[in-house]
């Protein structure tokens, strides 16, 4: 079984972001970049499927500028077999990414597509669902457990207030949530080996996708700053303030 994993290059989750003073966006120059944490979980799941003998090939794909090859190499070091870099400007909209992935799926015919439920930069949480709609395939979003049996995959999903289990007929699209697994670190020998693994380059145009701008970001602003309050000296003062000043208890 072929597994396709879509990943994204984002500002490292442990970096404190800075909004540019001209309101045009967030500063990305000289900022540490990483693979989106939810995508790491998707890569890990695919590699585990391969180790378990369920998957026989793991292909990792990303759309973006040349430097997103760094994250593709990381995925190769974690155990993916080959990579596809879709050359595009940074900031493709989710629907365009979904259309590019649909085109990659037509070429590669994967039985399973895995990706993170959302990227931690734009926080859209859309691509997996959109890809499912375009391909008319079943979707298992926010997965915390994935079990493949024959022609179906059982997906346990994290929903508000609990869990939901679905059975999807393969091929299927799955987006990964935090509890699915704990991603490994790449070992040095595997990082060296990853340099020799194949990396195919394609353009959005070669995939037959038009880049349509559905949305414009007019301005990016820092959030309103919350003002710190007061220090209280004792539990009794705290209780008094909560009762009589804030009136919340």
């Amino acid at each position: 079984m072929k597994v396709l994993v879509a990943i994204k290059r984002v500002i490292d989750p442990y970096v404190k972001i800075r909004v540019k003073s001209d309101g045009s966006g967030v500063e990305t120059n000289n900022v540490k970049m990483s693979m989106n944490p939810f995508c790491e979980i998707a890569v890990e799941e695919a590699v585990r499927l391969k180790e378990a003998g369920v998957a026989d090939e793991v292909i990792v794909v990303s759309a973006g500028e040349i430097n997103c090859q760094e994250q593709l190499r990381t995925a190769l070091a974690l155990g993916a077999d080959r990579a596809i870099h879709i050359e595009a400007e940074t900031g493709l909209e989710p629907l365009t990414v979904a259309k590019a992935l649909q085109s990659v799926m037509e070429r590669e015919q994967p039985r399973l597509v895995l990706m993170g439920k959302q990227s931690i930069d734009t926080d859209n949480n859309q691509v997996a669902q959109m890809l499912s709609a375009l391909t008319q395939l079943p979707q298992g979003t926010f997965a915390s457990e994935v079990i493949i049996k024959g022609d179906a995959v059982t997906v346990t999903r994290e929903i508000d207030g609990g869990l939901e289990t679905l059975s999807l007929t393969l091929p299927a699209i799955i987006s990964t949530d935090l509890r699915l697994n704990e991603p490994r670190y790449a070992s040095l020998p595997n990082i060296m080996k990853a340099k020799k693994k194949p990396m195919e380059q394609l353009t959005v145009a070669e995939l037959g996708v038009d880049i349509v701008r559905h949305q414009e970001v007019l301005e990016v602003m820092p959030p309103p700053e919350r003002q710190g309050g007061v220090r209280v000296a004792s539990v009794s003062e705290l209780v008094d303030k909560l009762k009589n000043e804030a009136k919340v208890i």
Partner: protein
Amino acid sequence: MATLIIAEHNNVSLSPDTLKVVNAAMALSPSVSILVAGARCRAVADEVGKVTGVAEVLLADNAVYEHQLAESLSALIAEVAQRYTHILAPATTFGKNLLPRVAALLDVGQLSDVIQIKNADTVIRPIYAGNALAAVKSNDPIKVITIRCAAFEPAQEQAIQVASVSELDIVVANDITQFVSKQAVESERPELAAARVVVSGGRGLGNSESFALVEKLADKLGGAIGASRAAVDAGFVSNDLQVGQTGKIVAPELYIAVGISGAIQHLAGMKDSKVIVAINSDPDAPIFQIADYGLVGDLFELLPELIDSL
């Protein structure tokens, strides 16, 4: 301008989040239509008809919609969508799962997790886990929007039903996805995302046994319990309790952070709470910079005292 809201419900009653979406939609038009899709869910449609601002209720009551699977519901919504300029749903796991699929079927983009509707085509939404806000304009003929419910007050329900219910006979069967089961988290406490009071514990508690102090305090206040990423990673509690960038986003009236230092990942999930209390032994912990009331000291002395004094 015509707005369609997708109701979230469990075939028996309407979710409070849907009421918040109705209120959010009032920025677009004085009245809205609501779609209730489910099985044997007529009661939900009648309830929706009582909500202030709802002029029309569409009811798709059929066994194929019982579990509200995105594959069926998205096709149903796409069928009726052309009559509307805006399609809204709560940015809950229900709406997040469903609406992007609708957008793709309509070949339009989606505006996710909107916290403010500026006008018919421009919204404000958080990016980078709320560490920045983006004003985004949609150029699409149909705007597909999920609403971050913590940012809006609920619409009111009236005593009598005012909106008429019209039944849709569109049936979208789906043989590629099967519902297997649903396991609700059994808890006497209110749900984290909807609670009026949230008490969260962090690494400062030291171990999972000490987390009982957080639970006791929450129970005294009738609140929900939450946790920081650090507490989840340390194994004190399961990660469905995690508040933050990658967990739940909450905005209760009172948020009490116990032994939480205040990493940006955590702050992103709770900084919109109305009143924030921080209790921490480290006077320099960043959580104090956003807390309305800060109390520095040993948790294991302060918490029992606080629990006893309530």
